[in-house]
């Protein structure tokens, strides 16, 4: 026993070092766990507040750009209002029963684009009605899915994440596909399940499909950059340019599906095949 204590005392530097490093590796594996995604709760309010203060200061230097973005969005909304009033005048407003989505506006207080897994921190949390798994969109296109919520802040798993897969549809022909990130450049994503009979042109629009209740149907996702024909003649790939510019996100909206609880129970009680 005495010898053990003497040994520890003599080599305390190396032993403490090894203990700390093992602790670090344990923390890393714990946070990288795919199934739980038990990322450390960075969404705690202290970290959120520091980032928000920083972003408040930074915003003064970007007021002009933010104004421009908001003006552009106003213009877009006006245009949509015009379309809606137009369809309302026609008697067959089939989407009338479909208004199950609510939008919660929020400000981005911190975001990354150049890491293998990117998150966005926003200044609305559970007190404002934000819940896990809500869809997040920007004026330009979809952004990601809420992954963690604290009372006043929420952390969003952006499309730029190695686990991110979004169900999308080619607007031109209605073909469904899955979009993932190509993991090196924040502007591009990849679709790798395109049937060979499908012809795609550069600039074809990709929108959200109706197969998810996280995002409403027909939201802008991106455009086709190039079709990569598979040499083995199986499924083709396509490089997609995201509509959202993730490096200059400022304002986003969270989408709440008002019937989500109902849908969840329905899916849970579905007989397993």
């Amino acid at each position, binding site marked *: 026993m005495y010898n053990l204590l003497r040994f520890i005392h003599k080599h305390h530097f190396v032993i*403490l070092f090894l203990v700390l490093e093992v602790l670090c*590796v344990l923390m*890393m594996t*714990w946070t990288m766990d795919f199934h739980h995604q038990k990322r450390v709760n960075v969404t705690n309010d202290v970290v959120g507040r520091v980032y928000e203060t*920083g972003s408040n200061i930074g915003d003064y230097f970007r007021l002009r750009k933010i104004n421009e973005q908001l003006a552009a969005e106003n213009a877009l909304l006006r245009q949509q209002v015009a379309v809606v009033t137009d369809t309302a005048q026609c008697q067959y407003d089939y989407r009338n029963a479909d208004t199950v989505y609510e939008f919660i506006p929020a400000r981005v207080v911190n975001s990354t684009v150049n890491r293998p897994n990117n998150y966005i921190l926003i200044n609305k949390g559970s007190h404002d009605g934000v819940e896990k798994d809500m869809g997040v969109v920007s004026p330009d296109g979809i952004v990601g899915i809420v992954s963690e919520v604290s009372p006043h802040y929420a952390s969003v798993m952006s499309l730029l994440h190695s686990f991110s897969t979004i169900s999308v549809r080619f607007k031109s022909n209605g073909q469904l596909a899955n979009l993932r990130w190509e993991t090196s450049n924040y502007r591009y994503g990849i679709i790798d399940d395109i049937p060979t009979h499908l012809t795609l042109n550069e600039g074809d629009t990709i929108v959200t499909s109706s197969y998810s209740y996280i995002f409403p149907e027909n939201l802008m996702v991106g455009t086709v950059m190039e079709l990569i024909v598979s040499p083995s003649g199986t499924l083709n790939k396509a490089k997609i340019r995201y509509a959202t510019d993730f490096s200059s996100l400022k304002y986003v909206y969270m989408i709440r599906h008002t019937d989500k609880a109902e849908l969840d129970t329905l899916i849970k009680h579905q007989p397993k095949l």
Partner: protein
Amino acid sequence: MNRFVMQIIRFFALLLAQVLVINYIRLGGYVHPYIYLIFVMLLPISTPNWLLLLLGFGSGLAIDLFMGTLGMHAGATTLMAFCRPGIIRLVSGGMKFENAKEPNIEQMGFPWFFRYTLCMVMVHNFTLFMLEGFTFKLIGQALLRILLSVPSSMFLILLIVYLFSPTKKKAKFQ
């Protein structure tokens, strides 16, 4: 006591500067300068080894909390703190700095401090990007990041340490 307060202020100032300013540098996604290392680099030479490790671990963990990468920076900074006594012996050669309380440019000279920064930054960045690359199987990218990030980290660290150097230089002009 005064020196103690000074270290605490330095810690928080570097932490805030790192997460609110430096982390927003995005040059092609490969340049990641880390200036928070200055805290561990400038700890007094007489700091006990165990405290050095704990402070290195703590400062890395603080950055991790902000960046959502629990364990990565803590691991790299702990290794850097572990290597610090060896690095100081290595870059000093046979030289002795009896009156120097903490590593600085005035007493040790610029070449000494340059070599010291180079070794410390290399150890840190190499560990950090390897941990990242190990996790995501992108070793090539990790190497490119190291190649680009080491010079930028060094430049910023040397600049900041030089700008905040106390008195000695000013005395020359009086």
